[in-house]
């Protein structure tokens, strides 16, 4: 089919617009990356330049000698891995009975779960609870309060419900109990949903910082995002317990280098998980 002139004009404008959108998405990250690698003089004199003329990685060198950053990275890694695994285990265990049409408590329990999506005790009540439980200043405060996300649980339950009951029934006739059915039949058939929820949980744990702000005053236990929040927000940039023999680079260099160091791991994993990410939003958009 021959394209009209209006059609071609639209295509061109649309393409240009999309290129601009992409540029707007990438520019902030590239700008900070470029400036994190500049020397002070160059950075101060060239606010508009994107890439450095001369590479200067003082900011990075400084951070890499800082013990705090690595310890915080360890905490973040711990909460991401342990948090995701425990969440998956407990969520699947709860989602399975809720997906069973013959389970008498199904309706009540589903309501118990969904009600928490609409009403919550809020920040203060949670804070008082955590404090009464003695969970402040411990690793576990990063994991237990976030164990199950009601949205994810409902997604999982809905996914389990789509599995044909005949499969489970035939296994039951062969003498399998509910736990065997869950681990041998339901879970292998739900890989996509599990992967998606694992991804969202992991991203949540990687990016969450406010629980450290609320519950953890010991800086050895801060995850890397909260350490970054402190470095960005406060003037206290040098409190990284880095090698004291080193000359301190300016705060700006450290801030930028920190932002990049915290962001890079996510960007490295992103291409591999993008598939699940898109799939997950689709599953999630199915009515709960």
């Amino acid at each position, binding site marked *: *089919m021959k394209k*009209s002139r*209006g*059609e071609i004009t639209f295509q061109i404008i649309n393409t240009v617009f*999309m290129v601009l*959108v*992409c540029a707007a*998405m990438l520019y*902030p990250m590239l*700008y900070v990356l470029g400036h994190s690698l500049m020397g002070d003089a160059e950075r101060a004199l060239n*606010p*508009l330049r994107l890439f450095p003329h001369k590479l200067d990685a003082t900011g990075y060198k400084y951070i890499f000698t800082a013990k705090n950053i690595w310890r915080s990275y360890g905490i973040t890694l711990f909460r991401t891995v342990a948090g995701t695994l425990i969440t998956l285990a407990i969520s699947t*265990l*709860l989602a*399975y*009975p809720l997906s069973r049409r013959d*389970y*008498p*408590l199904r309706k009540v329990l589903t309501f118990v779960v*969904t009600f*928490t999506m*609409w*009403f*919550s*005790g*809020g*920040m*203060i*009540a949670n*804070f*008082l*609870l955590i404090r*009464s439980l003695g969970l402040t200043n411990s690793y576990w405060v990063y994991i*237990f*309060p976030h*164990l199950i996300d009601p949205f994810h649980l409902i997604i999982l339950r809905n996914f389990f419900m789509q599995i044909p009951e005949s499969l489970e029934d035939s296994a039951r006739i062969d003498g399998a109990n*509910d*736990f065997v059915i869950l681990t041998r039949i339901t879970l292998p058939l739900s890989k996509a949903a599990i992967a998606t929820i694992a991804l969202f949980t992991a*991203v949540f744990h990687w*990016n*969450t910082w*406010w629980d450290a702000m609320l519950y953890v005053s010991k800086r050895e236990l801060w995850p890397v*995002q*909260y350490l970054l*929040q402190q470095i960005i*927000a406060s003037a206290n940039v040098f409190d990284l317990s880095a090698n004291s023999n080193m000359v301190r680079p300016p705060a*700006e260099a450290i*801030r*930028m280098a*920190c*932002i990049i160091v*915290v962001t890079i791991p*996510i*960007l490295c994993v*992103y*291409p591999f998980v*993008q598939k699940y*990410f898109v799939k997950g*939003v689709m599953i999630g*958009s199915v009515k709960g």
Partner: protein
Amino acid sequence: MKKFFRKYWLLNLMVLPGLAYFILFKYVPMYGLIIAFKNYNGAAGGLKGILDADFIGLTYFKIFFRSEQFSRLLRNTLILSGLRLLFCFPAPILLALLLNEITNQKFKKSVQTITYIPYFLSWVVVAGLLRILVGTEGPLNGLRAQYGLAPVYYMASVKHFRALLIISEIWKTVGYGTIVYLAAISGVDMQQYEAAELDGANRFQKMFYITLPSISEIVAIMLILQMGKILSDNFEQIYTMYSDSVYEVADVFETYIYRTGIVGSKFSYTSAITLCKSVVSLFLILLTNKAAKKLGSEGLF
């Protein structure tokens, strides 16, 4: 009863850890909201201190409604929600419609991949990037300097702060938001487009008369979800970006509750605020759901 336990003992056992979690970490805090009616500001005492605290009725509610904070917090929350509805809500719909018009699949995929990235960054990182970009040594002020204009510290500017919140939110979430709409668009029957083409419809007519109506259901659902959240504030976003010079336009319920309740230890007073907010939110969700059902949508529950 006996039969229930015998037949479903394993399922009951599987439910147990999850149920314990919901009771302890979701329902106990809801019960904890009773301190809104009590005088509990003690740092010590734990659970017993909360239970033993004096009952003072609606005193803290009255204090809050009479305070000047109340109108400021409500105003800021409503203005920010309104702006979000006006700009952040339609942005992904528009982007999805335009993405759908790209004929080169490789180019379309690349645009999608790039626009999803910011969704994976934490608000701490986004706020950090923003501070640098609009800071006094950043590119925006660099550009102003080239035209001989004095630098503006946007992050502390009452005039610009709301715009920064909206722009940064669009930047972070617009790509992610398109996924749902693109999925709906991909479900449109191609024959409709072909028939329209035979009738001589141009690109815009197809967009308005075929694509847009076919995603109206999902747009409605997303709108309901958004309406239900009208009183919930983006605590993470605002907290990482604001400072005391912009409290006037940026302070919302959650940030105030954090500063006064957690930092200032006024637990009962801030619980009263939380309770008001939660009840109104719950009401809004039920209301919008009902409205959606009246309008023929399935609703959320």
